[in-house]
């Protein structure tokens, strides 16, 4: 059978995740654990995959009504099918970083000339940002800077950085937290400022699906529960960690790692700093940047309209629909929780 055409209704809602269940999806883990989805009356089935490409393909094919996909992949998908719509992002900030060892004399992307830059994965989400950064610094990929995929966080990549096989490393924030967790490696972030706005994973659906009120209601409910989870986590990281470690115990073999991971995830969610902006909200300008970056790196050859994809009031309306719950009550709930 197909991925399920769970277009809402009694069958519940099928939503794809671009990555396995992990601390990365902390708000979702908490919403699930605390029963927020049931509170919202949504019956949501998360399908875990291993890459945003899977999600966008299935979306375009119409096999699923919605899914979370990395912003670059989502934007590329939109350039192929302008029926797609982005509603919110988790986290709403750039998750990809370019870092160098603390003691390196590289200060900026410009200094990478003649050096080797390790990336997590060829064709991975960090590549457009790397490409755009090099372009902006006037460097040519391969000619001026050697790009070497060395894998995401793990022994091989850590060793390659420590041994100096690569001079810098581009990956997602969990990669960086892992590599620095045990103190053997200290890093310095050299990601150009202008890319911070590029969002992480975004909830993508189709214009058609949004027309269907039942589906839209389900999506709103899901988003509300998700946002409540984000608020909960920001309010009580300890309880959030406990919950996460109950759901994904294999990520808590090393509690230092888990704690850092949770902390970074909460930090990027932006909820703690600013309760007025709805969780997951992304500015039009951020999307503009995303599309520019992708166009520069050659992943997008057409000239899609960022406004149609994520602007035009759709996302605004969606945000106001889900960011209407009692935030204070959720915070209170979080404070009194010990996670068990």
């Amino acid at each position: 059978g197909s991925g399920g055409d769970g277009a809402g209704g009694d069958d519940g809602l099928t939503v794809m995740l671009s990555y396995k269940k992990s601390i990365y999806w902390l708000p979702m883990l908490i919403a699930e654990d605390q029963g927020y989805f049931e509170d919202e009356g949504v019956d949501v089935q998360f399908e875990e995959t291993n890459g945003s490409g899977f999600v966008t393909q299935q979306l375009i094919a119409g096999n699923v009504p919605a899914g979370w996909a990395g912003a670059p992949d989502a934007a590329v998908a939109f350039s192929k099918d302008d029926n797609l719509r982005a509603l919110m992002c988790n986290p709403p900030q750039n998750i990809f970083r370019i870092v160098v060892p603390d003691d390196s004399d590289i200060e900026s992307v410009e200094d990478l000339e003649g050096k080797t830059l390790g990336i997590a994965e060829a064709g991975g989400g960090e590549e457009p940002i790397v490409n755009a950064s090099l372009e902006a610094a006037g460097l040519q990929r391969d000619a001026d800077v050697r790009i070497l995929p060395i894998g995401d966080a793990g022994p091989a990549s850590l060793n390659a950085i420590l041994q100096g096989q690569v001079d810098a490393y581009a990956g997602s924030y969990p990669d960086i937290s892992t590599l620095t967790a045990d103190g053997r490696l200290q890093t310095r972030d050299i990601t150009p400022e202008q890319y911070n706005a590029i969002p992480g994973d975004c909830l993508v659906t189709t214009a058609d699906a949004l027309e269907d009120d039942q589906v839209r209601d389900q999506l709103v409910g899901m988003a509300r529960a998700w946002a409540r989870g984000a608020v909960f986590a920001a309010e009580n990281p300890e309880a959030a960690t406990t919950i996460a470690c109950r759901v994904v115990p294999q990520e808590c073999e090393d509690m230092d790692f888990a704690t850092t991971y949770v902390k970074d995830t909460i930090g990027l969610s932006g909820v703690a700093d600013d309760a007025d902006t709805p969780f997951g909200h992304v500015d039009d300008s951020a999307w503009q940047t995303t599309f520019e970056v992708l166009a520069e790196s050659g992943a997008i050859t057409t000239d899609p309209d960022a406004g149609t994809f994520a602007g035009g009031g759709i996302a605004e309306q969606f945000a106001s629909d889900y960011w209407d719950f009692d935030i204070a009550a959720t915070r209170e709930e979080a404070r009194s929780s010990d996670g068990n």
Partner: protein
Amino acid sequence: MSTSTAHKMPPTRKTTVTKAGRPARRGPWAKVWPPVLVIVVFLLLWELACRAGLVNEIIVPPPSDVAVSFVSMLDKAYFWEATWVTMAETIAGFLIGVVLAWAIGTALGMYDWAKTAFYPIVVGFQITPRVALAPLFLTWFGFGLTSKVVMAATICFFPVLLNVMVGMDTVDRNARTLMRSLGASRWEEYRKLVLPSSLPLIFAGIKNAITLALIGAIVAEFVGASRGMGVLIKSLNFQLDVAGGFAVIVALMIFGLILYWIVEYIDSKVVFWRSHS
């Protein structure tokens, strides 16, 4: 000793030439201790290399650390869940792959037109990297176990198919003539002659298959899965818990070896005439 005395040994002596160079049976332990010894020596050297700092600990943890991780993992529910998932994928994929390969291989080997028409397609399919077709599999077989089972099945399919076909090719010609003279149908010829006489080869294919099925399942989990030992290895590696990752690999080896020896045992029981053909 001089040659002359060597030639005049007492008549009660027995020559000790062994049959076809095979060693005499020395009980089950004779088969167990040599590999155990080799493994122990290997582990000792590894441990020493780690202690002496010859091996980078980030990459290869000392066996003692792996052992500790392994033991502590045996308590964890998620470990057993992952094991269950991966083994289910492997065994299901293995069974499906072997049965399909057997059926299709037999058909191709039996009917020349089928071989001419479909063999290139089978080879083409085998050549196509399954990893690249993952999106297809996902669409057709969903996100759960099924797509991993399919991956495992497709990767263990071809070695069995090939050995089934070669097995049919190497059947004794005189025996075929005999069966034809008896008016055996293709099916009877297959069942009573071709199948038994190609069993040693088919089992070689099947033994290949069980190892490849496990590899296929793990690769599929690496490429996209949320559960299973592949995922566990990845996430432990991601946490730089290298010893933990190795512990899962050790577990994988153990389970894989168990599956392999089961197949090998069945082989030795079924093909009892092997050394006498």
